């Protein structure tokens, strides 16, 4: 009951925020509202018992996405020339879609129905067998890293291709790929503000520490490679904000970041290939060690590390690709 009431409140705010994002003619406000949208979405996920997803949505949606949107917006005009086109077409499609969805969801099991097919079969099997087959408390991590580890390697490559793509697209019309030496005149925003700088310096180690905790605690609580990667990347973005782009690029050279991204993805792939060489199928961690459960643990730890490295590398590569670009 509490879930339903909380949910309804959060969802209503969510709809209001979404409408405001679309209506706002100032793109900067729209970006801030979309940060709020992500926080609301994350809170809603938490209320719906999806702790891992909530953490990811907060770190990726509210943290990294906002930073990326701002980085891109710095290179774009910030006001939208109002004017809508195809409103008729949009309204027609929307009406059709809403009808279909209402029709479709009228018959689906209501929220929280324990007899729903989605709660049976595969899901029930995961919950019942994770303790004996993989033996880690966080079933989400078990499914993500082992049962559906093939999806997850795909996910790492999605993010890797995004990094490669951003570098490739933004290097168009420029004669260098990775930002080597940003312009000295680049405005370094918070660099000359003492208090944020001191506090930021104080915070960064804790953020990275917390990221590492999330990385290695992912088997026991909400967390894992993606969340950790996004948090560490966010911490290093904060460094770039308070110390300036130049200092950040000196601390983490672009080549290092890109190498981390590639290396993380390869590390994940290597685990799969080693499993193949040891006589299992791709990503079968059970063959890694003589004890299948220990093998699963090892495999999950290593691939989560690969995911974390890759996500950190890609997120920062993308951020710097935007931030070091002078419009």
């Amino acid at each position, binding site marked *: 009951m509490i879930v339903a009431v909380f949910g309804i409140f959060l969802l209503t705010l969510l709809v209001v925020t979404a409408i405001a994002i679309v209506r706002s003619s100032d793109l900067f406000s729209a970006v801030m509202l979309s940060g709020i949208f992500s926080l609301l979405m994350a809170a809603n996920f938490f209320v719906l018992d999806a702790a891992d997803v909530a953490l990811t949505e907060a770190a990726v949606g509210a943290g990294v996405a906002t930073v990326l949107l701002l980085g891109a917006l710095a290179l774009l005009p910030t006001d939208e020339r109002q004017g809508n086109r195809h409103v008729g077409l949009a309204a027609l499609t929307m009406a059709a879609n809403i009808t279909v969805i209402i029709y479709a969801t009228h018959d689906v099991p209501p929220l929280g129905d324990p007899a729903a097919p989605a709660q049976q079969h595969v899901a029930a099997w995961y919950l019942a067998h994770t303790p004996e087959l993989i033996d880690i408390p966080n079933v989400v991590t078990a499914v993500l890293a082992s049962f559906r580890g093939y999806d997850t390697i795909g996910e790492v490559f999605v993010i890797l291709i995004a990094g490669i793509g951003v570098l490739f697209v933004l290097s168009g019309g420029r004669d260098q790929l990775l930002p080597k030496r940003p312009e000295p005149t680049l405005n370094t925003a918070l660099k000359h503000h003492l208090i*944020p700088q001191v506090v930021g310096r104080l915070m960064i180690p*804790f953020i990275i520490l917390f990221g590492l905790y999330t990385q290695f605690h992912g088997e026991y609580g909400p967390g894992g490679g993606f969340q950790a990667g996004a948090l560490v990347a966010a911490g290093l973005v904060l460094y770039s904000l308070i110390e300036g782009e130049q200092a950040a690029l000196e601390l983490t050279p672009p080549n290092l970041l890109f190498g981390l991204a590639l290396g993380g993805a390869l590390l994940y792939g290597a685990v799969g290939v080693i499993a193949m060489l040891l006589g299992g199928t791709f990503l079968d961690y059970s063959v890694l060690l003589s004890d299948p459960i220990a093998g699963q643990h090892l495999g999950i730890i290593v691939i989560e590390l690969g995911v974390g490295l890759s996500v950190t590398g890609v997120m920062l590569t993308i951020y710097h690709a935007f931030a070091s670009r002078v419009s």
Partner: protein
Amino acid sequence: MAAVAEIVCWALGWVLLTSGAAFVLIGGIGVLRMPDLYTRIHAAGLTDSLGPILVLSGLMLQVGNPQELFKLAAILLFMMITGPTATYALANAALMAGIDPVPAESSRPDREQVR
């Protein structure tokens, strides 16, 4: 003895949580109703520090194990550091951008008259 401690904890928690909730709420109302930017920052800045302190301390009285206590303390610490910093940075940025903190008689386009 234990029972007394429990009741004290409960009562204290109740007081802390309710007063924290009240502060939070007052902050929300202040942010909405105050007439100009700096007064809004004032309302938000004060309650953003005090509200969480009270609410989180109230929650601390409920926890069962030291690990959770530590996490709550860490949240509290971070919020105490970051809240005022954010408020300062915001006010500073607004000042730098030329928004006048002294309410002038001439109506500025960026300030609405709330009455």
